[in-house]
């Protein structure tokens, strides 16, 4: 009886298979030595227009499916937004006076804040290809003055920081990634509780390492503290949803929600250092 040739007894096929495995191993080693950077940058540049087109197609899909949103849901959302508008109008009127005072004080102290000239708009051209790590690729790189560690925002809210820069593209580490860490302050409490914001696999942000003796309440606004990173102070991160305070715990923590639609980003703004 003729026996079927096994994987290790077919030299032609085996040579190709081992060759491919060897190639994979070589690529990993070359990347760890930094030799692949030009190749990776070239692939990123070539794929940029195509991924941009597919992202736009994704936006079209979104718009199509949003047509089927129930009217009752839209009505409820409309009422909620009207209430928010009323509250914001009230806030604007009280903030105008505070803004004038703040600007006068800043001039005296020489302190800075983000101004529109510091923001570089960048199109999102790619997403992290899995569900658990959170990165995006943007169509601006070192040729446009982008550097590692710069903050990235949208609608005044923190999106993440630049993690890796190529000549034409850069990769942004999103604030919702479980490994992301940024120092933060609860700006609505008089004692200004400080802690660390990080993402978690699945959903949401955690405001952690807050001292037990500090007060933190739902709907408080959490902003960056500017400590220990290149992220400027005062960028909005999100709002406190629930507080987890345990009697015997060293720290308390809170769930924070952000308004940034991370899977639907099209344009983001890099805070370019002056």
């Amino acid at each position, binding site marked *: 009886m003729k026996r079927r040739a096994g994987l290790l007894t077919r030299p032609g096929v085996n040579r190709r298979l081992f060759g491919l495995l060897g190639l994979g191993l070589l690529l990993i080693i070359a990347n760890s030595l930094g030799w692949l950077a030009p190749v990776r940058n070239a692939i990123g540049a070539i794929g940029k227009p195509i991924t941009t087109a597919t992202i736009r197609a994704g936006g079209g899909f979104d718009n199509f499916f949003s047509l089927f949103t129930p009217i009752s849901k839209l009505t409820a959302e409309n009422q909620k937004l009207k209430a928010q508008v009323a509250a914001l109008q009230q806030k604007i009127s009280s903030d105008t006076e505070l803004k004038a005072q703040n600007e006068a004080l800043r001039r005296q102290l020489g302190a800075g804040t983000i101004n529109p000239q510091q923001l570089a708009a960048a199109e999102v051209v790619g997403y992290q290809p899995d569900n658990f790590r959170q990165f995006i690729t943007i169509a601006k790189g070192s040729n446009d003055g982008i550097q590692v560690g710069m903050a990235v925002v949208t609608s005044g809210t923190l999106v993440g920081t630049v993690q890796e820069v190529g000549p034409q593209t850069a990769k942004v580490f999103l604030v919702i990634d*479980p490994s992301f860490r940024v120092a933060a302050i609860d700006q609505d409490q008089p004692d200004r509780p400080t802690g660390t914001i990080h993402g978690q696999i699945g959903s949401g942000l955690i405001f952690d390492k807050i001292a037990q003796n500090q007060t933190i309440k739902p709907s408080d606004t959490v902003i960056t503290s500017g400590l220990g990173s290149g992220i400027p102070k005062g960028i909005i991160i999100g709002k406190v949803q629930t507080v987890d305070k345990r009697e015997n715990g060293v720290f308390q923590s809170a769930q924070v929600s952000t308004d940034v639609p991370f899977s639907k980003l099209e344009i983001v703004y890099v805070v370019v250092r002056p």
Partner: protein
Amino acid sequence: MKAVGKVLIILGLVWVQVGLFGHWRPLGVMPNLMLLAVLFFGLYGSATTTLGAAVFGGFLLDNASTVDFGLRMAFYSVAALGIIASRQLGLRVDSLITMLLAVTLGTILFDLVIISTVNGTIAGNAYSMILSEVIVNDSLALILMLGRTSMSGQQSKPTKAAWA
């Protein structure tokens, strides 16, 4: 199918995965198109094509990713070798049930590998995300298999010639 066609398929899948499915996520999750491609090539293509797709597709996805370079290339290569070995052992791997089982197992293992590399907390709904991804991947595999069956008229059997 010529080699150029296969390369274009892999490129297309990578661009759709990091572009379209990054933005529009069915059931809130991104499907694993490359896993489906590797398993499909494994069932119907040659061993070289399967491993070639795994290495090339994995490299492109690793390139699109910022962390863990090599992880996807390694995972898809192991998946490719697994399906090659299954065919080598004479198992009937081209049935619908086998494909769905392979996709389910591959998706769960891939997600667990990715989660194991993350240094951070895991929310309860991470597991529901894995379940959603299994449903989406299996649905796509089902469409792929039914489409192939309706086009060819019948399911193919593994042939010795396919190993060249």
